[in-house]
């Protein structure tokens, strides 16, 4: 399904509002968080002094395990959660104490939160109704945004009559019609089945590119984050572990947590040093001039073009090698077999040390 994307791209970008920096002022970041903390009732900090700058028109993913503070961070950006300490800036304007609707953000909720008593069209037109835009005009504009998400055919359905993916498109249109400078998405793909997830993922990226605004997307899926992001922010225990491009985070994880969480890495203690080695750079044959470790194969997962081999060392450390199917089937090893796990020194990453 390819639609004509030219028809309204200009209408859909945010209005320039009064109160924004005058021309000539440097406006380098869409979102800035300065030493932002969140604690509930004086207890432990859910978010601990995080500082973050998201460049203009980026797709930014906040990635981390559950309870790491990523959703709280998003909700503080949206204004649905008070900031305990620090400042939040959107397009260089301090919005720390601004109302959710007054900060140029719009949030797409994990459950979509479509109003069940309103049709898809009325859901999208809701914010215009609040602004007392006449009915015909607001419905016409809502239809325009439903077209953007390819939902114009189902405009008159109620949310209960829509599938999860369709509901999400409506929720997206309802957020975008407010012309946000920054769209905030709380685990937008987690409720969808795997096939739809990949489809919607590219949809989100397409719409973000088309509108040229910043998307901040919370997820616990590293695959999603790597596939979508211009900028990945890995969080743990209320702190930012690493922020950078997807490639930086994957190739140069800043610590063992990031290396483990982002997946596809072996974190190995070898000759007194801790290094990470990408699983796809590891082999299960002895490497001449490489690092060799005796290990036993515990399981083999066939993944089509690749085969994942899980191993355990003599001192019970888990390892993993990902090799091509051609290489695997040339001489297939078996579960329980004792092999040599190896990698080349050039493929080691010592966490910047």
């Amino acid at each position, binding site marked *: 399904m390819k639609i004509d994307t030219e028809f309204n791209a200009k209408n859909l970008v945010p209005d320039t509002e009064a109160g924004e920096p005058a021309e000539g002022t440097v406006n380098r970041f869409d979102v800035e968080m300065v030493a932002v903390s969140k604690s509930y009732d004086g207890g432990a900090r859910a978010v601990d002094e995080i500082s973050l700058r998201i460049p203009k028109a980026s797709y930014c993913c906040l990635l981390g395990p559950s309870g790491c503070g990523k959703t709280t961070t998003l909700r503080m950006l*949206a204004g*649905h959660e008070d900031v305990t300490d620090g400042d939040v800036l959107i397009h260089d304007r301090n919005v720390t104490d601004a*109302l*959710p*609707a007054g900060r140029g953000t*719009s*949030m797409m*909720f*994990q*459950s979509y*939160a*479509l*109003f*069940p*008593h309103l*049709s898809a069209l009325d859901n999208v037109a*809701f*914010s215009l*109704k*609040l*602004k007392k835009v006449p009915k015909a005009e607001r419905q016409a504009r809502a239809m325009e945004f439903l077209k953007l998400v390819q939902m114009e055919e189902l405009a*008159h*359905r*109620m949310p209960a*009559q829509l599938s999860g993916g369709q509901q999400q498109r409506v929720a997206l249109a*309802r*957020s975008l019609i*407010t012309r946000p400078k920054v769209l905030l998405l709380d685990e937008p793909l987690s409720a969808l089945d795997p096939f739809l997830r990949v489809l919607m993922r590219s949809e989100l990226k397409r719409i973000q590119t088309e509108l040229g605004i910043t998307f901040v997307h919370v997820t616990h899926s590293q695959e999603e984050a790597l596939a979508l992001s211009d900028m990945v922010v890995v969080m743990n225990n209320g702190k930012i572990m690493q922020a950078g491009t997807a490639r930086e985070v994957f190739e140069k994880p800043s610590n063992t947590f990031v290396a483990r969480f982002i997946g596809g890495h072996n974190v190995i203690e070898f000759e007194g040093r801790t290094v990470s080695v990408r699983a796809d750079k590891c082999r299960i044959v002895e490497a001449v001039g490489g690092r060799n470790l005796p290990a036993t194969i515990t399981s083999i997962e066939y993944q089509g073009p690749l085969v994942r081999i899980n191993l355990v060392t003599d001192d019970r450390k888990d390892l993993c090698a990902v090799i091509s199917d051609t290489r695997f089937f040339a001489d297939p090893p078996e579960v329980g077999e004792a092999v040599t796990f190896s990698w080349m020194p050039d493929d080691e990453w010592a966490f910047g040390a």
Partner: protein
Amino acid sequence: MLNRRPLSYYLLSTFFTAFLLFLYGPMICVYLLSFQGPEGGMSFPMRGFSLVWFETLFSAQGRGVGDLHNSFFRSIRLGLIVALLTMLIGVAAGMSFRRKYPGSNFVFYSAIASMVVPGIFVGFGISLTLRLLGLRPDWWYSGIGAQLTWSLPFAMLIMFIILGRLDKSYEEAATDLGASSAQRFQYVILPLILPGVIGIIMAGFTSSYEESARAGLNIGTGNTMPMELTGLLGAATTPVMFAVGTLTTLFMFSIVIATLLVSGSIAKRRQLRLTAH
């Protein structure tokens, strides 16, 4: 038979049937006896069928038996006002619990506690206080007030159930889209809780209509329906009281049916909006 029902099924069914018999059996007796022949008495056997006791009830411009005619309209008036106030205060109170505030637990438990205090003492206490203050009880303030002590806790509990099921993200989404708190209530919360609000009105009305323990001492001079009936029952010698029972039941059933029709038409209107397109 693979799907043989366990013994407990038969035991519980028997128990439930007995329960239904105890619940509706006496009522059916009352309805039957209200059609007793003119020669018949207040118990079986039936001596023919007639509408003579209904005629007695409505004889002399409705003043055939006691002050039933007036007490009925007093009860309706009281019930409608109590229902309206219960709805307004109950919904507002329920909404206030959407956000925790200092002392919210105290407010909640003190409201619920009034449900377990015997009504007769609540009524007695109110009347005693009025006397201390030198006020004469009257239906429009102390009568309504006394009944609200009974209907409001129910309204609050119903609101808790309704609002407990209402996903908080609807409100957040509305806020995110720029709704003020008034708009949020008008466009999002109220439409979603409307069936429950109708339920609160009904609960308020019925709890007032049948209530006399609290209102009794505080209603002033005009008896309400349950008070009048209690008085009449003590001295009753003819089946005319059964006719009252039959009519009251019909009245309450028609209210229930009317409510269902209203709720149904709301649902239908929503359905129509779907199919219209």
